[in-house]
């Protein structure tokens, strides 16, 4: 790996651009996707097929004043949206898009990603708390309990993967799965027959972790108005939205690397970054698809799902995998 100072910087700029484009255009994709599912057209007016809509929205948000209501904690209120955005951006530094496209290969990159994901949750907590709004405070409380419940099955599932590959480096994990879809962790039935289920568990958890519907209790517009974002306008709101989409992208990248073989082609042909992008966009589309299909869960039902179904299943999977590794 090249250790010159320019390489990470160039890569970072590239990833920033990638992240920025994703944050803007995932919103467009979501609106178009929702429109098609609901048999509407979605945005059509600004540019061809509404392609310039994100730009227009961004301009509108930026031209607005960031209102800081009286009675809020000024510093936290301003910091929270930035805090929602930064960890997601930082995460891209360690994600390997292909064998040679990675800003920095960190040995404990899996751990780093989860640490950063927890900071994103802190942003919601702080934003909700600092707003001094009752809806926002309820939302913050919900968000914390939800994240606590979901990180356990998520981490247990990751431990399973780490046990199989024997590394906590995302690059190594992806390399370990090269050579066709039968090598992917999702189909690693020789390691543990429950791997497809742990893929589903991990995917559900990553949706819950990013506060996406049907697990968007923190936002819950019909109950909590807009949850932690109630008091935010202009780019404060914009950053939260971008942070949400970026977290989605990071989640999709993680799922791809941990379970779907990273940049590997299903049939062993032309592995490369395009396979990686294809996989994450399929996953992102699924997330959007899920959001526009289901009603919202209720917070306690969600905790039930986590504690009664996801955690037992992931623990069983962990034990089975450990047994398989020990025996074979």
């Amino acid at each position, binding site marked *: 790996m090249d250790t010159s100072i320019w390489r990470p910087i160039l890569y970072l700029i590239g990833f920033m651009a990638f992240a920025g484009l994703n944050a803007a255009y995932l919103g467009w994709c979501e609106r178009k996707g*929702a429109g098609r599912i609901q048999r509407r057209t979605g945005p059509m007016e600004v540019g061809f097929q509404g392609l310039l809509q994100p730009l227009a929205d961004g301009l509108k948000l930026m031209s607005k004043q960031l209102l800081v209501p009286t009675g809020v904690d000024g510093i936290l209120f301003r910091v929270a949206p930035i805090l929602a955005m930064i960890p997601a951006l930082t995460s891209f530094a360690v994600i390997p898009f292909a064998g040679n496209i990675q800003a920095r290969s960190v040995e404990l990159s899996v751990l780093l990603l989860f640490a950063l994901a927890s900071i994103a949750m802190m942003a919601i907590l702080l934003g909700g708390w600092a707003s001094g709004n009752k*809806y926002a405070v*309820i939302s913050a409380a919900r968000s914390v309990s939800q994240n606590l419940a979901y990180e356990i099955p998520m981490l247990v599932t990751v431990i399973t993967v780490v046990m199989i590959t024997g590394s906590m480096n995302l690059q190594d994990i992806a390399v370990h799965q090269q050579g066709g879809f039968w090598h992917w962790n999702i189909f690693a039935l020789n390691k543990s027959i429950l791997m497809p289920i742990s893929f589903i568990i991990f995917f559900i958890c990553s949706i819950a972790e990013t506060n996406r519907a049907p697990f968007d209790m923190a936002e819950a517009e019909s109950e909590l*108005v807009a949850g932690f974002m109630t008091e935010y306008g202009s780019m404060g709101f914009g950053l939260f939205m971008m942070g949400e989409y970026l977290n989605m992208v990071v989640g999709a990248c993680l799922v791809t690397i941990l379970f779907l073989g990273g940049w590997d082609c299903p049939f062993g042909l032309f592995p490369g970054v395009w396979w990686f992008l294809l996989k994450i966009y399929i996953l992102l589309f699924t997330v959007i698809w899920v959001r*526009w*299909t289901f*009603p*919202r869960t209720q917070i306690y*039902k969600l905790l039930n799902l986590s504690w009664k179904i996801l955690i037992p299943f992931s623990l069983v999977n962990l034990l089975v995998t450990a047994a398989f590794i020990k025996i074979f």
Partner: protein
Amino acid sequence: MTVPIECRQDETFVLNLGPQHPATHGVLRVKLTLDGEYIVEAEPVLGYIHRMHEKMAEDRNFAQFMPNTARMDYLHALAFNHGYCLVVERAAGIEVPERAEYIRVITVELNRLISHILWWAAFLLDLGGFTPLLYAFDDREQVLDLLERVTGSRLTYCYFRFGGVYNDIDDEFITGTYAFIKRLRSRMPTQYHALVTGNIILQKRLKGIGIITEEQSRRYGCTGPVARGSGINYDIRKNEPYSVYPEFDFDVPVYHECDSMARYMVRMDEMEQSMRIIEQALDKLPDGPVKAKVPKILKPAEGDYWASVETARGNLGHRLVCDGKKNPYKLKLRSPTFCNLSCFAEVSEGMLLADALAFMGSLDLVIPEIDR
């Protein structure tokens, strides 16, 4: 109810849900005292869209009050038309031609159908499902087009007249209605039941939530789908038949679970029954005039009269007190949701905020009708 908002000794806090809140479908305000997310006390505060229709009735003559009736329940405006017509016809002794009665039933049932469809859509929106709303609007739009053909308006109909209806229906309306029923029947199992009713998330959110027992339902005077979801077989169309309803074969869906899911199922089944009524009415539609000869200025005899109709939300009663003059001496509107909502405070006690909103959605509130 009387505890001041400040200086609470316990850990509770007051949350003002509304008057502008996405889940209250209008301008209902609910003062919630919460302990965490648990509701300690709920007090609905009404009157934000109160327009004193009863006073307006006293100032106008009988026919002039007609447009007001549509402005109360904007989702089932024709039933309010119907209820008011019934009470005035009862007072003035007006006979309605049979064809007019059939047209009334057809349009009222179509209106009930879209009222339930829109309730379903809005309820799913409360629960965070957005897509069903658009599917429902797709269907609703078909009916609105049909009703626009005959009544001329799309939401606040003023179609009924004393002794009949404003104008006749045409063949295109009849074929269009048959086509719509066929279409809705084909969409019902997928877009409605498979996508939503069978969904595990919805089932988990509604089952066992918001239980109104049969006794509570009676003590609070609940009617309509709320009562029928509590196991009470009560439908004005059957219990106190009016118009030509006795001539149709339809069932009153009753569920005994008493929870939000039961009320949901009652409404879903009622849509099917409404379609049955419409089909039968269209099949049997007699020929004849659609409006009886009625003097322009009515002067009913002294006395008081009551007439009830079944709206999509329950028993709508009109009490008309006449003193022999050309305007009502007193018109009392008994709106169904006013009574249905009154049980909210008792039932929602101890519920979670999210559940309480699901429960509130299942009551099918139309605020202008509560506030009148």
